């Protein structure tokens, strides 16, 4: 086997050193009864060319990968500069693990330190961790952290306009986590959180209110107003962002009063890859840092005073604190955090802003054109970034028809929101050229 270097001579010499006659003797401690049925009923191994051919054949059957698509809903098609993957392919990065030995892991550590800085800046919060799995588990962890910080509170309000899968994951994470009441907050005609409802419901037992920013409908919540509505209750404000690029052009949650801001980083340099791996972002205020889940990298120095970086505040983590850890997370999404770091370094201060502006412009243009006739109208009146909902009778059928014409014209909201039966959610980004938008108009009609 090409990955295994042992020659027959090697095996002989090593067995002799160990003092056994045969490889099977190494498994002496395994009861014979168990070993009897160990044999694997799988095909035998194949040369690399066959591996590649098999995978190419499978990839070719994913016809959706090459079609014009306006599907967003938590995973966004963006152009990724070649530099990002060029760096990810550095074996020194991808074949290392958690930097337990900082002196030979400064590459990973410095990059994570840069990632933490970028994420903190993006959210305008003080501190960010070295990554979570995805936006969904980051949201769940934020809820758990808010509960941990306020053990006397037992209610959590999650906006119904938060990504449905994020809500599902939060629900799963809360199973068994004590007597927690999870309630959903309705949205209004503008697609934003119903503030009146919130004002009435948020109370002294409410640990956190979770809102999407932008929310699942692409609508940008009025965080200042949400924050105001929570003032009396003292509940923590948690924002969750599936389209992180939005934060390059809309006010940051940190500056509008969020206590914890989380999100999904896939938009920032990570391919769609059928939904994973992306990377979960997690930021909060310094005073909460010891309650944060996940890994943290901090600055350090050696005896000569040379600057370096180390894993730090590990006493929060499972490998030290075990059942009292702030989270069970161990392996995280470090390589995708690196992708985000490279991407944001390349796009930079002005490039990221320009890109966001381009998304904004294209999406607004697309909605305006789609809704220029009688066929479609905007479902929500709230401000949006690069994703929006339109409604019109027979939306589901229209979607299928577009599909047959080779265009994936978004997703129908009906599968998650029975009350939004005739609504389609579309994302328009910089990958959608004016010609692509023309084609969208053509297949969906106006």
């Amino acid at each position, binding site marked *: 086997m090409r990955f295994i270097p042992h020659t027959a001579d090697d095996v002989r010499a090593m067995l002799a050193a160990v003092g056994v006659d045969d490889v099977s003797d190494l498994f002496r401690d395994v009861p014979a009864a168990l070993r009897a049925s160990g044999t694997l009923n799988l095909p035998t191994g194949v040369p690399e060319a066959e591996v590649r051919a098999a995978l190419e054949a499978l990839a070719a059957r994913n016809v959706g990968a090459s079609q014009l698509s306006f599907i967003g809903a938590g995973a966004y098609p963006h152009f990724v500069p070649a530099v990002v993957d060029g760096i990810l392919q550095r074996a020194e990065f991808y074949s290392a693990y958690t930097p337990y030995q*900082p002196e030979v892991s400064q590459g990973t550590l410095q990059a994570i330190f840069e990632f933490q800085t970028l994420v903190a800046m993006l959210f305008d919060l003080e501190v960010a961790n070295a990554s979570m799995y995805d936006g969904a588990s980051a949201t769940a962890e934020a809820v758990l952290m808010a509960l941990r910080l306020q053990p006397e509170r037992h209610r959590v309000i999650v906006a119904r306009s938060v990504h449905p899968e994020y809500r599902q994951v939060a629900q799963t994470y809360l199973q068994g986590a004590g007597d927690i009441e999870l309630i959903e907050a309705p949205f209004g005609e503008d697609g934003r959180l119903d503030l009146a409802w919130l004002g009435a419901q948020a109370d002294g037992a409410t640990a956190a209110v979770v809102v999407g920013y932008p929310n699942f409908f692409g609508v940008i919540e009025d965080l200042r107003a949400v924050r105001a509505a929570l003032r009396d209750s003292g509940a923590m404000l948690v924002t969750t962002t599936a389209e992180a690029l939005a934060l390059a052009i809309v006010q940051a949650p940190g500056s509008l009063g969020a206590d914890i801001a989380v999100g999904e980083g896939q938009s920032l340099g990570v391919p769609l890859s059928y939904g994973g791996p992306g990377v979960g972002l997690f930021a909060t205020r310094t005073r909460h840092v010891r309650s944060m889940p996940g890994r943290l990298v901090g600055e350090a120095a050696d005896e000569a005073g040379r600057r370096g970086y180390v894993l730090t505040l590990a006493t929060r983590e499972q490998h030290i604190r075990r059942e009292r850890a702030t989270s069970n997370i161990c392996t995280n999404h470090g390589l995708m955090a690196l992708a985000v770091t490279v991407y944001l370094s390349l796009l930079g201060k002005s490039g*990221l802003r320009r890109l966001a502006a381009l998304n904004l412009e294209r999406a607004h243009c697309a909605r305006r054109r789609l809704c220029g006739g009688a066929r479609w109208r905007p479902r929500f009146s709230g401000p949006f970034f690069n994703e929006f909902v339109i409604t019109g009778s027979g939306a589901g059928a229209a979607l299928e028809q577009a599909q047959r014409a080779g265009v994936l014209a978004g997703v129908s909201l009906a599968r998650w929101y029975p009350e939004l039966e005739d609504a389609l959610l579309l994302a328009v980004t910089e990958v959608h050229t004016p010609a692509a938008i023309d084609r969208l108009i053509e297949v969906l009609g106006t």
Partner: protein
Amino acid sequence: MRGSKQAGLLLDEPLIFERSRPGRMGCDLPAESDVVRECLPAELVREPIDGFPEVSEPEVVRHFLRLSQWNLGTATTFYPLGSCTMKYNPLVDEAVARLPGFANLHPLAPDEYAQGALQLMWELQDMLAEISGMDAVSLQPAAGAQGELAGMKMIRAYHRDRGDPRSVVLIPASAHGTNPASAALTGYRVQQIEGSQLGLVEADAVRRAMDERVAALMITNPNTLGLFEREIAQVAEAVHARGGLVYFDGANLNALMGVVKPGHAGADVLQFNLHKTFSTPHGGGGPGAGPIAVKAALAPYLPGPRLKREGNLLRWSDMPARTIGRVRSFHGNFGVLVRAYAYIKALGSDGLAQATAMAVLNANYLRVRLQHTYQLAYPGLCMHECVFSDKPFEPYGVKTLDIAKRLLDHGFYAPTIYFPLVVSGALMIEPTETESKETLDQFIAAMEAIAREARETPDVVRAAPTRTPVGRLDEARAARRPVLRWQPRTEAGASGGER
């Protein structure tokens, strides 16, 4: 004559923020038009983010290439990090995971348009079921710990549905930290099971601890000492006898393929760590993937949606009635699944069995070659890894940490240290099957040299590493006064990151 090129030139590199210059650009995009103002209310619009890097493309490339050169990885050197199975990551797996048909596929693409992905996942589920001897698999969990969490939630749901909610999970002292953490996150009280003199879980001890409050036993096999839990069948019997379930931590499956199937040894729930056993890259911390497998009785509780076959098509189901729900958005770490699938296909039944056999041979070879120099924590054959302690060097004031740091000077990554907790000053060495005898011999020579140094010139060991880009970093001070990010200069000359 063999020259030693181990000293060399690494290039210095500041933080990317410190390379920043106002107006420099790493991409060319059209300047922003006035449309922004028409699209968004002014009070929502943010200024370009202060402190974000302003660097050109060549500088970005140089920055990250230089950083990469400060890292050791399993691709460049022996990386015997115990419990992490740092085997070789095949380059073809990197290539196929990047095929546009995978990389550009949207997770909500209609099932009809994603049949290749679904077929791959379907087959991978079957492969994993066969390897583990379990009945059903969900690929959704993002890592081992999330697999454990899903497993715990399933166990909880199972007992609840039987009207028998339970409150305790038994966990051996040698277990990985994620086990108690995952149990606690599910509301269970963790009760520790002490190991035997031989480092093993005894059926008697489990029998004593078992009662109707115990929801499950979490057991790792081989355990974190690298030892096969010989009484696994009796242990499982003891758990089952009192209505409990056996959670089998599958992180160490690299020692079992083609030898034992956990499903035949009493496991009810088991997570895989694809980034260990199936060779997907560790990425400097991740991503991994932690599929969860169960016996039939627990299948209804698996995270949903589930894959189902409808005629010639594969499809995602609706949420099954009794599922614990989702643990991750979309379908898990698909890109990692592609790599694991390619790896299993490449090795096949013969290759996987050979991998296990050679991984165990390598570990035992290291064990016998090092056992007279270092103190073996537990005697006898080991499986895929072996654990030593720093006891012999106590008289010289040399500790496991020093030994680990000195190994870096020899160009090796260090073993896992101070874990498992049940061994004081543990050095946990997992060579994996992709290392050659020559590499092991070089490592042994380094370990022996360090032992000699520890006795003769202990200061040298305590001062290590000296050949790395930075010396030993003061972690205690870093934790006392944490600097967790760079700060934009607020006034001339002051910078958080630079102090």
